[in-house]
C-alpha cells in the first residue's frame, strides 16, 4: 500500500483513541472501570517486556493454530462430500446445523470435562467452531464450479483427481477463503471460551487473573488488546495466503 492508502487507517485509529480518552475524561471514570489509553498502552508494553503475557500468548496461539488446522481440514473434506453427494448432505446436514446452533459457551464446560483442562479440549472447541463456516463455504464453492468447464474436463478425459485438482479446487478457492476468514476469527473466540471454561494458562486465564486476584485492570485491557491483535494478525495472514493462491482473475 502507498502512503495515501495508510492515511485513513491511521486516522481512524487516532480518532478511536481520542474518543476513548474523551470518554474517560468527560465521564470522570476511574482506572478500574475504564483506564485511559495511555495507561493501557504503557501496561501493554511492560506486560510484554517483563514476560507476563508471553507464556499465555504462546499457549493460546498453539490452541488457535492447531484448532484451526484440524477444524478447517476436516471441513474441507466434509464440505466436498456435501457438495458432491446429495444423500450425504441430506443425512449429515441436520447434525451439522444442530451442532452449530448449540452455543459453544454451553458446550465448552462439557468438552473440558471430557478432554481435560489442557490443550486437547481447546483444540476440539476451536475446531468445532471453525468447522461450520469452512464446510459450508467449501460446499458452496465446489457447487459453483461452472458446468461448462466440467464438460470441457470430460471432453479431455480428465480423471476424478484431475477434475478435483484443476477445476473444482481452483474454482472453489475464493469461496473457501471466505469461509476461512470467518473461521480464523472464530478460532480466537473458541480458544478464549475454552480457556474460560477451565485452563491453567492462556490469554483468557490472564484476563481472569487480572480482574480477580491481581486486580490489575490495565493488564486486563492490555490482554484484551493482545487478543484483538491476534485476531487481526491471523485474519491478515489468511488474506495474504488468499492473495497468493487466488490472485487476480
Amino acid at each position: 500500500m502507498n502512503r495515501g492508502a495508510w492515511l485513513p487507517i491511521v486516522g481512524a485509529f487516532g480518532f478511536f483513541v481520542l474518543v476513548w480518552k474523551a470518554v474517560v475524561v468527560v465521564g470522570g471514570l476511574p482506572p478500574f472501570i475504564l483506564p485511559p489509553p495511555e495507561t493501557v498502552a504503557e501496561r501493554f508494553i511492560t506486560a510484554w517486556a517483563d514476560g507476563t503475557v508471553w507464556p499465555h500468548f504462546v499457549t493460546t496461539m498453539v490452541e488457535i493454530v492447531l484448532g484451526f488446522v484440524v477444524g478447517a481440514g476436516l471441513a474441507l473434506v466434509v464440505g466436498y462430500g456435501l457438495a458432491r453427494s446429495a444423500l450425504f448432505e441430506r443425512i449429515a446436514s441436520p447434525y451439522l446445523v444442530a451442532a452449530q446452533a448449540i452455543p459453544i459457551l454451553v458446550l465448552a464446560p462439557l468438552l473440558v470435562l471430557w478432554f481435560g483442562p489442557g490443550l486437547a479440549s481447546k483444540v476440539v472447541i476451536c475446531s468445532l467452531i471453525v468447522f461450520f463456516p469452512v464446510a459450508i463455504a467449501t460446499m458452496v464453492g465446489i457447487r459453483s464450479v461452472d458446468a461448462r468447464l466440467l464438460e470441457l474436463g470430460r471432453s479431455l478425459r480428465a480423471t476424478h483427481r484431475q477434475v478435483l485438482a484443476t477445476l473444482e479446487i481452483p474454482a472453489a478457492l475464493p469461496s473457501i477463503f471466505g469461509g476461512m476468514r470467518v473461521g480464523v476469527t472464530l478460532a480466537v473466540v473458541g480458544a478464549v471460551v475454552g480457556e474460560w471454561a477451565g485452563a491453567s494458562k492462556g490469554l483468557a486465564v490472564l484476563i481472569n487473573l487480572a480482574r480477580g486476584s491481581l486486580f490489575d485492570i490495565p493488564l486486563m485491557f492490555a490482554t484484551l488488546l493482545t487478543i484483538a491483535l491476534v485476531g487481526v494478525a491471523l485474519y491478515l495472514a489468511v488474506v495474504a495466503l488468499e492473495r497468493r493462491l487466488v490472485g487476480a482473475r
Partner: protein
Amino acid sequence: MNSTAVGRGGIQLCDLSFAFRSRTGEPLPVLDRVDLEIPGGGIIALIGPNGCGKSTLLRVIAGLLVPANGEALLDEVPIVGPDPRIGLVFQEPRLLPWRSAADNITYPLELAGWPVERRAERLATLTELVGLDPAVTGARPSELSGGTRQRVALARALALEPEVLLLDEPFSALDALTRERFDFELLRLWERSAATIVMVTHSIPEGILVADRVVVLSPRPGRVVADIVVEVPRPRSIADLDEAAVSRTAREIRAHLGDTDIGETVPAELAS
C-alpha cells in the same frame, strides 16, 4: 502439423437418434435418424434453425452424449466416449479463468501427462499455428479480447493434434469482420493440418465460405433435409464470395431452410 494419411478422420453417422429426458420423464427427441458420411480431411458445415440439435449432434460425435439409437463411427470404429483424436471448440471460449493463456492451451497436454518441456515446445507450435501473439500468452483470459480468447480455445483444441476438429458456432460472438478473418484463418489452418472439420453455424455465408458441403437440418427433432455441395474452388478468397456459384448455393440452402419453417414452432407432420 503431422500429415495424416488420406481417409483418416472419416466420420460416419448411421441411423443416429438422440432424445433428452424432459422434466416429466418423457423422452424429448432431438435427433431423428441422422445418416451422414464425412470423409477424412473434409469440411462440413451444419446449418439449421435454433434448437434443431446441431450442438447435440456435435456432442454425440465428441463422445459426450450417447445416442439412443444408431451409432457414430470414427475411422470405422464406434465412438464410445471422449477421444483424444477429436478436438472441440465451444461457442464460448470456455477458458479456465485462473490460468494464463499459455496454461489454458497446454491444459489438454497436462491432463494427458506430457512432461513440462514437451508442453512448452508444443505451445510454441500451437501459438504460431493459430496466429497468437506470443507476448499475450502470459495474460489471464479476462485480460484478452474476445477474438484472442477464441484463438486460445482453438489452440487448446488442436493441442493433441486431433484428426477431427468439431466447432460449435465458434466465431458467432465475434463481430462480422473479425469473424470473416477467422473463417479464412481456419481455412489456412485446415490446409496445413489435413484435419476433418465439422462446423456448426447459423450463417449461410460462413458455411459456403468454409465448407465442402453444407448439411441442412430440420427443426427438432433434427433430420438431414439437404446435403449441398459447395462448388467453389479452393483455395477460397474473399473475392469468391461474389461468385454466381455462391449465390446459387445460398439460394438452394435457403430454400431448404424455408422447408423447415425456420424460427417457427415445429408442425407435427414435419417430423413424420
